[in-house]
């Protein structure tokens, strides 16, 4: 046994030396682009705990199909390879390497999740592969642009969103006493930081904050302790399940604060669930933000962006729920991707795509009216504005002008 092990180790060593002659093939700058095709790739959680978000990827795929059926981009068809990573970062890493090195994709587009994208970011930046329009609102995609210039997000980041709430509070009710419930992770901490930043010297308005873990069964005890603080304003920085619990618990405990609710938790299904259990009082008057058009809003019926959305849904995702805003978000991402490729013209190289992604000034038909998608080489926050909306009997109604959070943050610096 020992002898044969020695032999095996010897052979292994020999083979290792033999390998010394194997050259490392560099990735060519224009992988994935032929005169007729552009191949892009990404990962989405089609299975596993976050699978509800996969309609974003499906929406993007449908939009690319639509573009291909209308002649493609400057004569090239887009092939979008979207793989299932079950929201597991090691899976994301392996699949992304496979996409880049085997499928030879031109760029990674719309991969979903903060953790999965954090895991692939160093690799893609080292290889010089664009990591475009990430489906995650973490502020780090924009904040760390100097270190990771090949990475860019899309949606308004959570930090910006909270700045908008802070400014609204200072304007509407400057004497508020603020209580916060937040998810104890990067997501929740982004919101906390943004709120404190937006309140500036008035940060002492925050009288109490309580956190929860995603594994917690319930948040009603946190709500009770926040209520006991005597606050009159409640910030719910929570993902859907806990947002519903928070709204319901607040109503059931007879507490009537002004509620601000994180944008990730304002879909029709969530608001209906909270209203059903907690009553109309649980949801009416809640303030949040929007950055895309609400597909559930009947007022949008004649809007060209909504019509395009409906046309694509009817043709390519006939079984999808029209009011599921995530499909529309996916199409909005894809619209920006196509816009960037279009502006590349004949020069579809990775460097040029980044140049175009760094010089966006786009009116996206799916975005909330008036919000521009705009970037520069140093600004990787494509969306910095959002509209404040208020929930009123089954619908979020816009309450005023757009607020540009990054402009506020910049002005403070």
């Amino acid at each position, binding site marked *: *046994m020992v002898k*044969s*092990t020695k*032999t*095996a*180790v010897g*052979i*292994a060593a*020999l*083979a*290792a030396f*033999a*390998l*010394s002659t*194997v050259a*490392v*093939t560099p990735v060519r700058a224009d992988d994935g682009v032929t005169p007729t095709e552009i191949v892009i790739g990404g990962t989405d959680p*089609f*299975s*596993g*705990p976050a699978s509800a978000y996969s309609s974003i990827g499906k929406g993007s795929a449908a939009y690319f199909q639509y573009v291909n059926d209308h002649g493609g981009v400057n004569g090239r068809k887009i092939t979008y390879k979207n*793989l*299932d990573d*079950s*929201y*597991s*970062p*090691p*899976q994301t*890493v*392996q*699949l992304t*390497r*496979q996409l*880049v*090195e*085997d499928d030879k994709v031109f760029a990674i587009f719309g991969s979903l*999740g*903060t*953790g*999965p994208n*954090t*895991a692939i970011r*160093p*690799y893609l930046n*080292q290889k010089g592969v664009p990591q475009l329009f990430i489906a995650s609102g973490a502020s780090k995609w924009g904040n760390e642009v100097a270190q990771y210039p090949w990475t860019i997000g899309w949606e308004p980041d959570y930090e910006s969103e909270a700045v908008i709430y802070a400014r609204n509070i200072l304007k509407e009710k400057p004497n508020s006493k603020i209580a916060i419930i937040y998810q*104890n*992770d*990067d*997501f929740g901490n982004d919101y906390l930081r943004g709120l404190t930043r937006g309140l500036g010297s008035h940060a002492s308005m925050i009288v109490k904050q309580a956190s929860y*873990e*995603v*594994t917690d069964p319930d948040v009603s005890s946190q709500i009770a302790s926040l209520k006991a603080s005597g606050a009159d304003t409640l910030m719910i920085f929570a993902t859907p399940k806990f947002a519903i619990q928070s709204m319901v618990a607040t109503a059931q405990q007879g507490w009537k604060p002004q509620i601000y609710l994180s944008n990730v938790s304002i879909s029709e299904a969530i608001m209906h669930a909270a209203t059903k259990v907690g009553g109309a009082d649980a949801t009416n008057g809640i303030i949040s933000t929007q950055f895309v058009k609400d597909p559930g809003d009947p007022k949008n019926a004649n809007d060209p962006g909504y019509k395009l959305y409906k046309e694509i849904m009817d043709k390519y995702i006939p079984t999808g729920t029209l009011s599921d805003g995530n499909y529309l978000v996916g199409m909005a991402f894809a619209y920006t991707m196509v816009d960037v490729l279009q502006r590349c013209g004949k020069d579809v190289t990775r460097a040029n795509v980044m140049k175009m992604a760094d010089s966006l000034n786009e009116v996206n038909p799916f975005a909330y009216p008036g919000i521009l998608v705009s970037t520069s080489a140093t600004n990787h926050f494509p969306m910095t504005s959002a509209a404040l909306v208020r929930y009123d009997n089954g619908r979020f109604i816009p309450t005023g002008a757009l607020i540009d959070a990054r402009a506020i943050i910049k002005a403070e610096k």
Partner: protein
Amino acid sequence: MKTNRLVLFGVVAIVIAIFPAFVPSYVSFEFTYVAAYAIAILGLIVLTGKNGQISLGHGAFLAIGGYTVAILATKAGVPFWIGIPLAGIVSGIIGIGIGLVALRLEGVYLALATFAMAVSVPSLLKRFTDLTGGSGGLVLDPVTPPSWLPIDSERFFYYVAWAIAGVLIVFTAVLLEGRVGRALRAIRDNEVAASSFGVNPYFYKTLAFSWSAVYAGIAGALAAIPTAFVSPDTYNFNLSVTVLIGAVLGGLESLWGALLGALVIEFLPLWAQKINAAAPSVVYGVALIAVMLTMPGGIAGGLIRLFHRREPKADARAVGPVVAVPVQHSSE
């Protein structure tokens, strides 16, 4: 029989050694995970296959290993070749603690207790933010090969992982062949009879548990380093199930099951996506059922049975039902 095994081992070792020369580096990268999975499954073969204890929670030990190496590297700059053995040691020590508890539990009760362990790990990892980076996890620096080795980092770490896997496979085979292996199997088959022959079941059951924990810890470290990122999302309950599926599919009776099972859990999900992108989990599930129906002893068991059929002289002892404790122990 014994020479055959050595020849087979030698052939597999050679194939593994020259493999990276013929494939692109991302394939070497994927096979690094196969090595990690194989080590984790090897631990489960010792624990479940040889000793009859069922763990639904080995993902927790992978987490301990992964986080040990990540914390040491990011907070103290400890290089991976020190971090990997330390990951095994830390995981093994925690394994002794849990193994002592496991002594009091059997069968499904042990499975449930380990299940709880796997479920609680992600939220525990979020608690100690200063150490673990909370839900944001920890980003590691990529491994770079020593400058005198002219291979890329993917292939370099492939060799590191497979060298460790090779050593552990040989070490396990030698130990299982001898007194320790006999004691483990005797306890699995009949604990009362075993102890009446002077085998201390407490000692050996705890040993099996921490032994498998050491392997899972090393596996966790080997998987975390190429990923260069650890986060609570990495170590969800699915991981524990995946590793157990790998052990059952590969075959709990033979050490070759570790290699085969690792190949299956690494590549079956990818393959399922290629077959049907719309419903990969359906393809995955059907493939699992098909293997279990045709090869109840796992793939290794199925191959052994095939081999024995061709050689009627050899003792064709059936490979027992998997997970349920086999009544008879088969030849190695």
